[in-house]
C-alpha cells in the first residue's frame, strides 16, 4: 500500500446527496426487475397474442416487438422512469465530485509522479476521439468519457467511478464488488486453462480501470495494460490503482490504432466496450487484436449476447439503449454474425470461443469451477446479470 490517498474513496457525500444516490439505486432496481417484469407480462399476455392474431405469426425480431410495444402505456412509463433514473445516476454524484475535485486532481498528479505501485500513465492529447463520443454523451453521462474542464482533470473519471456504484447499487448480483466482469473472466481462464500463463494482458476501452484490476489480481506476474480515449478516466483509474497497490499501465489510445507491436499480448480483452463502437471500427479492432496477439494468445471480450442467440422480446429489451441511452451502435453490433465477422478478422472458426461465464463474486465456488472445467456454459442468460457473455478466439 502507498501513502497516496485513494481517489476511489475520497469523495464524501452529505446526508441528502447520499440519500439521493440510494434512491436512484433502488429506483433502478424497481425499473429493471419489478417493472420490467410487469412489462414482459403485458407483452406475453396481451401484446404478443394480439400481434399473432393480426399477423398469423409471432414477431420475428426485436424491431417488430418494439413497434408493437412503442405506444403501450407500460412501455412509455417504464422507459420514462428508466431514462430519468439514468440521468439522475450521474446527477446524484456530481455535486460531491465538484466539491472534492481540486483534491482529487492533486492526488492523481501525485500518483502519476510517484507511481508507488509500479504502474504508469501515458497520455496523448492528440488521440483520435471517435465522433460518436464527442457528439453524444454515452450513457447520458454529461461530459461523457473524455471532456476536460480544467488542467489535469479527473472529474469525468470520478463521476463515472462513483456513478457506476449508484448505477448498480440496487442490483443484488452487482453489489459485491467493482470489476465483476473481469474477475469472472480472469478466474474462469485460470481454472479452464491452468497451463496458460499470460505474461502481458491488454484491456481495451478500460474506462477508469475497474475491469482492468482483476487481471493483475488473478495473474500477479503478468504486465497488465489498459487503453481508453478518455484522459480523465485514465488519470482517475491510474491514481486509484496506485493507491490500492496494483501496478497497471494505462495509455490514452484509440483501440483501432493503439500502436503496440505485433505478437505482443497473451490476452486481449474488454468489457461492455464493443457495443459503443461502430461496426467498421469493430472489425478494425478485431484485426488489430489479431495482429497484437502472440501466437497461442487469446482474445476474449465480454459483451451483450448477439441478437441471433436471444429471443425477439429480449432483443427489443436490450436494444432499448441503442435508442435512448446514446449508444447508437448497440443494435448493429448485436446484429453481427459473430463467427463470420471474427473469421473475417483472422480468428479461424475452429479457434473461436463463445462462452457464458457466471459472475464470479455471486456464484458458489463449486458451481463456478464446474462451469469453468466442464461443458455447462449456458446456465442462465444475461438478463438476470448472473452470467457474462464472452466471445473471441485463439491466435
Amino acid at each position: 500500500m502507498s501513502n497516496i490517498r485513494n481517489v476511489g474513496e475520497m469523495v464524501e457525500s452529505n446526508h441528502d446527496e447520499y440519500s439521493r444516490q440510494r434512491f436512484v439505486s433502488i429506483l433502478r432496481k424497481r425499473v429493471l426487475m419489478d417493472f420490467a417484469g410487469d412489462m414482459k407480462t403485458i407483452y406475453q399476455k396481451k401484446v404478443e397474442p394480439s400481434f399473432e392474431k393480426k399477423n398469423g405469426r409471432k414477431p420475428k425480431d426485436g424491431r417488430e416487438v418494439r413497434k408493437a410495444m412503442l405506444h403501450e402505456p407500460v412501455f412509455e412509463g417504464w422507459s420514462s422512469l428508466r431514462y430519468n433514473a439514468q440521468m439522475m445516476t450521474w446527477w446524484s454524484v456530481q455535486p460531491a465530485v465538484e466539491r472534492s475535485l481540486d483534491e482529487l486532481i492533486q492526488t492523481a498528479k501525485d500518483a502519476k509522479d510517484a507511481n508507488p505501485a509500479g504502474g504508469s500513465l501515458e497520455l496523448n492529447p492528440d488521440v483520435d476521439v471517435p465522433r460518436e463520443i464527442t457528439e453524444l454523451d454515452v450513457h447520458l453521462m454529461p461530459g461523457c468519457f473524455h471532456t476536460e474542464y480544467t488542467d489535469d482533470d479527473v472529474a469525468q473519471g470520478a463521476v463515472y467511478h462513483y456513478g457506476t456504484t449508484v448505477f448498480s447499487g440496487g442490483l443484488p448480483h452487482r453489489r459485491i464488488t467493482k470489476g465483476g466482469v473481469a474477475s469472472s473472466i480472469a478466474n474462469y481462464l485460470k481454472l479452464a486453462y491452468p497451463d496458460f500463463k499470460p505474461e502481458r494482458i491488454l484491456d481495451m476501452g478500460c474506462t477508469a480501470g475497474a475491469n482492468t484490476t482483476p487481471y493483475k489480481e488473478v495473474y500477479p506476474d503478468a504486465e497488465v495494460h489498459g487503453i481508453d480515449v478518455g484522459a480523465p478516466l485514465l488519470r482517475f483509474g491510474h491514481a486509484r490503482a496506485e493507491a490500492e497497490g496494483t501496478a497497471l499501465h494505462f495509455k490514452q489510445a484509440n483501440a483501432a490504432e493503439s500502436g503496440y507491436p505485433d505478437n505482443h499480448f497473451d490476452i486481449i480483452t474488454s468489457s461492455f466496450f464493443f457495443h459503443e463502437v461502430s461496426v467498421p471500427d469493430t472489425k478494425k479492432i478485431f484485426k488489430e487484436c489479431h495482429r497484437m496477439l502472440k501466437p497461442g494468445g487469446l482474445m476474449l471480450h465480454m459483451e451483450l449476447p448477439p441478437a441471433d442467440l436471444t429471443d425477439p422480446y429480449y432483443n427489443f429489451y436490450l436494444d432499448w439503449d441503442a435508442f435512448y441511452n446514446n449508444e447508437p451502435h448497440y443494435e448493429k453490433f448485436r446484429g453481427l454474425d459473430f463467427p463470420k465477422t471474427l473469421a473475417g478478422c483472422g480468428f479461424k472458426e475452429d479457434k473461436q470461443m463463445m462462452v457464458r461465464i457466471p459472475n464470479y463474486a455471486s456464484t458458489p465456488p463449486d458451481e463456478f469451477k464446474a462451469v469453468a472445467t466442464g461443458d455447462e456454459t449456458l446456465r442462465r442468460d444475461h438478463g438476470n446479470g448472473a452470467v457474462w457473455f464472452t466471445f473471441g478466439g485463439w491466435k
Partner: protein
Amino acid sequence: MPEKSVHLPLRSKGKRATFYKDPAVDQLFAIITMLTQELSVAFDRIETVERMLDKNGVISRADIEAYKPDEQEETERTARRDEYIGRVFNILHQEAEALLDS
C-alpha cells in the same frame, strides 16, 4: 464551504428522448420522478432525526450531515424506499396485475 472551481453540466449531449406523443408529458414525468426523489430524501432526513433523537436526545445539523446508517438500518431504509417507489409508480404495475388476475 470552499468555492467550486468547476461546475459540471447537467444536460447530456444528444437529442433528448421522448416517449409520449406530447413532449410535455415527458417533461412532467421527469419532474415527478425528481420530486419523488426529493420526498424520499426528506423521509430519510426525518428518519435520521428520529433515530438520533431516540439514541441521543439532542442533535445538531452537523450530526445529521455526518450521520451514516449502519448496515441493518440501511437495509430497512432501502426496503422503505423500494416499497415507496412501488406505491408512487404503482400505475406501471397495475395493467400487468390485471392481466395476471384475468
